[in-house]
């Protein structure tokens, strides 16, 4: 789904200011159906990571592959099609203030050439999915922060993208609402959608027992697999839960694991194929 190979991103300095290395030596793989947190302090390079996935910025070195698109060779006119496969919930939601909730969601379909008939069917469906059917005709300013965020999520879902990315989903709303949006994201994940949550909140990343990729000073310093909620027997650890695996039981990156479990290795933290350049237990 998402693969980074020796990725480096340098923002060229302007005049007196030096070049800024925002990311370097990044190697990782996020598979289909995974739920991943990307954790890092302010300035660590999280937004840069997202920008590379969305091809808002191009990597200076290395390769980024998203949904089968090689972003180092992608053509400008292909970028819109890459983005239709990526649902993004921005930190600031980015809703159009003059449009109703319904219109904001429909907008994303209209501007991608989808016929009106299909829009009329799809928009109420996704609004219902995020629990905002009743607020379809409210303007963003008439909605709470959490509701606005759910509209942003509905908009991200409207193209049925295989990947959903949320940038600081708990940043701009009350803590309780933060849990609510996280639960929605988890529900979406259980039906097979890959979810990437970018955050600086360590507690949030740890609470859900999912895979956590930690970025610091532009480098991946830790890639901790989804932790079991309780001690499990090796056999249990080998059989991943439906929520963890989503609809991708036959991931090519993982077939070796059950065998490893059978050899009696301790219930070591699962390392995905993505942890190539990262830690080994």
């Amino acid at each position, binding site marked *: 789904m998402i693969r980074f190979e020796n990725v480096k991103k340098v923002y060229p300095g302007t005049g007196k200011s030096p070049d800024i290395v925002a990311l370097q030596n990044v190697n990782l793989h996020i598979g289909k159906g995974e739920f991943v947190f990307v954790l890092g302090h302010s300035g660590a390079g999280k937004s840069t990571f997202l920008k590379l996935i*969305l091809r808002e910025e191009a990597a200076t070195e290395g390769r980024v592959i998203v949904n089968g698109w090689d972003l180092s060779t992608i053509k400008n006119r292909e970028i819109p099609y890459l983005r239709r496969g990526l649902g993004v919930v921005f930190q600031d939601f980015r809703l*159009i203030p003059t449009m109703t909730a319904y219109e904001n969601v429909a907008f994303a379909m209209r501007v991608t050439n989808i016929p009106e008939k299909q829009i009329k069917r799809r928009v109420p469906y996704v609004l219902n999915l995020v629990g905002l059917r009743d607020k379809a005709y409210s303007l963003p300013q008439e909605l709470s922060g959490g509701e606005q965020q759910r509209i942003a999520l509905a908009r991200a879902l409207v193209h049925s993208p295989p990947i959903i990315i949320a940038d600081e989903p708990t940043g701009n709303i009350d803590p309780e609402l933060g849990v609510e949006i996280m639960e929605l994201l988890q529900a979406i994940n259980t039906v097979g959608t890959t979810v990437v949550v970018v955050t600086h909140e360590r507690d949030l990343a740890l609470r859900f027992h999912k895979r956590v990729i930690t970025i610091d000073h532009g480098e991946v310093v830790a890639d901790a697999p989804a932790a079991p909620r309780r001690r499990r027997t090796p056999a249990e650890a080998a059989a991943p839960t439906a929520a963890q695996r989503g609809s991708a039981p036959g991931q090519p990156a993982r077939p070796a694991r059950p065998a490893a479990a059978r050899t009696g290795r301790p219930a070591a933290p699962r390392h995905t194929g993505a942890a190539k350049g990262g830690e080994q237990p």
Partner: protein
Amino acid sequence: MKWSSFQYLVKQGWHSMVANRLMTLASMGVLTACLFITGVAALLSLNVNSFVDYLGSKNEVVFFLEDTATDEQVQALAAQIDATDNVAASTYISKAQAVEEMRQDLGENSDLLDSFAGEDNPSNPLPASFRVSVEDPALMDQTVQTIRSYGGDLFYRVEAPSELGDAMVTVRRVANLVGWGLVAVLGVVSVVVISNTIKLTVFARRKEINIMKFVGATNAFIRLPFFVEGMTVGALAGVLATALVGGGYYAMDRSFHAADSYSVLLVEFQQCMIPFSAVILPLAGGFILFGMFIGGMGCAASIRRHLKV
């Protein structure tokens, strides 16, 4: 592109025009003014050309022949003159025809010339002549020299209005230069003004454009409503300018033809002013197409930066 998308885009362009109606009106006004001046300059220059052509066609050089010239020599000369470059028309006026013309000019006193009339009247003092009109007055001197060399001693006098020719050529050149210079300068000014106006509407909607980019809209799709807006403004300005310039020209055309033709100059103007009916269609077409072109260009220039996300 699907019909519903097209409808959506056109609606968007229209909404944006209405929402920014002040800016829309302002840019339409500026564009109309530019088209107006351009149109006046073009019409002026076209009419000066027409006037110069008209004077040029009346601008005859007269080659008077010696009485000794034989019929064969005259025929040979006529053929040579007709074959000369820049000769629009040439007419041979025999001695007898010269007397006839003079008698007509004298009107009721024509009987004074009775004794000179008739073919081959030996007492006829008037010379035979060639009247030659040229296509381009600028080359008149050269043409006269060439024809003079054909005739040699057979011509006893040549009357050529060369100063008038030079003056007309200068007038025409200045008129063309000023006219097309204005067209070019105002074209550039219009593009700049339109692109700045659209830049404002683009800026007002930059968030929307940014969101469109991230939900996967193509650049062509994002650009289209702005094109619709720019071209509509251009087309409306074209219609307005047509009404203004066309209306003015129509009034002028009418008043020239309604006026009593006492003045010789007025008659000349009437002769050579390009009629309204011949002007209105090219004028409307030119204004509307030029307006739409400039509107589209201005739009393309202003939106590029915002698509780079």
